[in-house]
């Protein structure tokens, strides 16, 4: 079976728009939160967002958008993008440069692209309003491909002339973790030699605010306190958007191109709660089963895992559920192993983006030899006791990292990475 390596990363996130900045902010535990201007209204209870800097996508017309001048994007491509498509396009350009891919390495039947975003509720709403106000024949011919779920893969596949596998994934906050898993399988099975995996979200009012209706958003007004996974005082997640791109390649391609990978992906697993449409299983049964499946598929024993990048979003129920799952999986492990942290304390919760973003954080930390700590964690929730939750970044080299992701409907994914 082919081995799979991660050879390129690209970031547009609340904690940085390039790998160097992201790495520094992870290590120094500097968050990307701000009081989000559109939320500063009396009728909006939540105030803080993990904001994307240097991009402005407030207008429904992509030609009004501004973004760093190093990205040149033609109108022809821009016109069908949602904000998450713009973020992803820029992140993909970074990842391509990072992996030193040539045009022929990208556009060939052996290279595919899997993507995950929640679509663009913002543009969907805009185009639907236009339809109702002006009639269907005055609607943009590109309104659909710019806004429905799938907009991300439609746009990227066309823009980068992808000829291999392409698909979108929709399992809410597990989406891009699923995309990574199936991309891994495609390379292992020899169906593809290289895969782009992308997670992205608009991170604007229409993408984040609906979660307030579920009472899952933090109502904290202090950006320094809003996202506190595993802490007694946590009160919900902080929304964020952006994009992360990972390039995965077979061992043969890594050797042919002579590039140095970030990490190897050893395997993955998934399992479902079969419990509730939106609430995690109280014992974290699906999450635990996903981790067991992932470790078994990867040939890794629990005690070999050095670091778990947790899904923990800073919600009351979710963090406890995952803590219980972690305790059950690692109960026979060496004391204090593995280190557990949630980088959502720094970024907020990226929804469909989360799995890809945090996997990229994990492999970045693997290559640079540190383990991010738990920012903003002061008092560990008694329900989350028994885990090694360091408050500060550990300056040490991990060997094996496990990444958890969970989504609505009780979908759970666990991914295993190894130092290359």
């Amino acid at each position, binding site marked *: 079976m082919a081995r799979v390596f991660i050879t390129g990363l690209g970031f547009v996130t609340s904690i940085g728009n390039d790998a160097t900045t992201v790495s520094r902010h992870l290590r120094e535990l500097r968050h990307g939160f701000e009081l989000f201007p559109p939320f500063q209204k009396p009728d909006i209870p939540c105030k803080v967002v993990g904001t994307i800097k240097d991009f402005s996508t407030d207008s429904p017309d992509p030609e009004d958008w501004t973004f760093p001048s190093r990205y040149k994007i033609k109108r022809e491509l821009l*016109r069908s993008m949602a904000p998450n498509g713009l973020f992803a396009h820029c992140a993909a350009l970074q990842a391509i440069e990072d992996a030193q891919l040539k045009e022929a390495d990208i556009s060939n039947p052996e290279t595919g692209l899997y993507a995950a975003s929640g679509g663009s509720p913002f543009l969907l709403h805009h185009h639907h309003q236009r339809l109702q106000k002006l009639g269907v024949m005055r609607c*943009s011919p590109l309104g659909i491909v710019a806004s429905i779920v799938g907009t991300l893969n439609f746009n990227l596949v066309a823009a980068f002339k992808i000829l291999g596998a392409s698909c979108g994934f929709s399992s809410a906050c597990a989406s891009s973790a699923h995309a990574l898993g199936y991309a891994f399988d495609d390379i292992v099975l020899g169906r593809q030699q290289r895969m782009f995996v992308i997670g992205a979200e608009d991170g604007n009012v229409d993408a984040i605010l609906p979660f307030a209706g579920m009472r899952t958003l933090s109502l904290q007004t202090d950006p320094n306190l809003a996202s506190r996974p595993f802490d007694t005082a946590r009160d919900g997640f902080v929304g964020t958007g952006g994009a992360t791109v990972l390039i995965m390649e077979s061992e043969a391609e890594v050797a042919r191109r002579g590039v140095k990978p970030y990490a190897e992906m050893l395997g993955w697993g998934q399992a479902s709660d079969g419990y509730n449409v939106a609430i995690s299983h109280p014992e974290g049964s699906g999450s635990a089963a996903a981790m067991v499946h992932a470790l078994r598929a990867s040939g890794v024993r629990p005690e070999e895992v050095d670091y778990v990048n947790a899904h923990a979003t800073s919600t009351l129920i979710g963090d406890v559920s995952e803590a219980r799952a972690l305790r059950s999986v690692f109960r026979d492990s060496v004391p204090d192993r593995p280190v557990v942290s949630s980088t959502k304390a720094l970024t907020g919760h990226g929804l469909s983006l989360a799995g890809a973003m945090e996997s990229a954080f994990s492999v970045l930390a693997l290559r640079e030899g540190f383990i991010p700590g738990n920012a903003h964690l002061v008092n560990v929730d008694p329900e989350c006791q028994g885990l090694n939750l360091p408050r500060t970044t550990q300056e040490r080299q991990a060997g094996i990292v496990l990444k958890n992701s969970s989504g609505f409907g009780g979908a759970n994914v666990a991914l295993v990475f190894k130092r290359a």
Partner: protein
Amino acid sequence: MPEAASHSPGTGKPFPSTPKAFAPEDEAALRESLKRCSPSTFESAVQFRKTGNPEHVPAIVIGVIERFVEPDLRVKLKDADDDLRLIEDLGIDSLTMMEIVILVEDVLQMSINNDELRNLRTVGDVKTFIDCKIRGLPLPRPTKFIPIEHIGAVMPVQPPFLFLNEASVSSTAANGKYRISGQEFFLQGHFKDNPVMPASIMLEALGQLAVLYLLEGAPTEPGKVVSAQTIFFTGCEGVRAHRVCRPGDILTLSIKPKRMKMPLATFEGAIRVGQEKAVIVEEITLTYAFVDAVNAPVPINGAYAAPEGENGAMPADAPPLRAAINA
């Protein structure tokens, strides 16, 4: 043969019959719609909306097209002639065409049907189309695409001396393609061990395209058609060959009528290979004559109808294009 194609319902309706009052909020909306167009486009649009004068339409249409063309291609529109092609020259795809139409509809306050767009291939087509709609004139006959078998059925010239593989004919021009296969009999001797398409044959190919135009596209008198047996070459002027053409080259031929007055029809013509000029002819003149339509064979139009219409046979008096559309 009828001059105008049959229309979909709603086309050909003059607009605006009397211009609607142009309120300040209309001007604000128009300014917003045209915010990425040149100031002169906006000015023309304001004038058109105030007066309904169709003379402003070309400037508006060109201004709207320009707004949707990539900046580095816009220079082509500066002194564009009507032959500038939307797809090949300006990189406008069908989706961009829709964007152009939606903005034109918005600015000119008119409706355009999807099936009216398919035949618009050049800037000239678009200008003529919008102008006809504004003035309430019948739309020009759409360009017909004529495959090789129909060319053979219509033309007096036949293989091995027919140098058109495919052609399209409108009321204002004809375009064709011919691929030099290398099997042409005269290439054995022209030249020894060095096959080169003779310039005289390339001139002949342009002449053949002009013949096809006379048979398929030229305006006629009521009840008359051009007789294939009456068309002959009379002369040419300003012939220049710019490029050696060899087997494998695909000749892109185009002719446009300059003057048509029985019995003489004068055309200008050009052959390109890709973007390279191969042959230019300033004038090529043919003679022609009409015969009564009843006496002429009519495979020409019948060829475009589906072989089996809804009710089997078409009514004999149905205008050919309408019959084709209904088929």
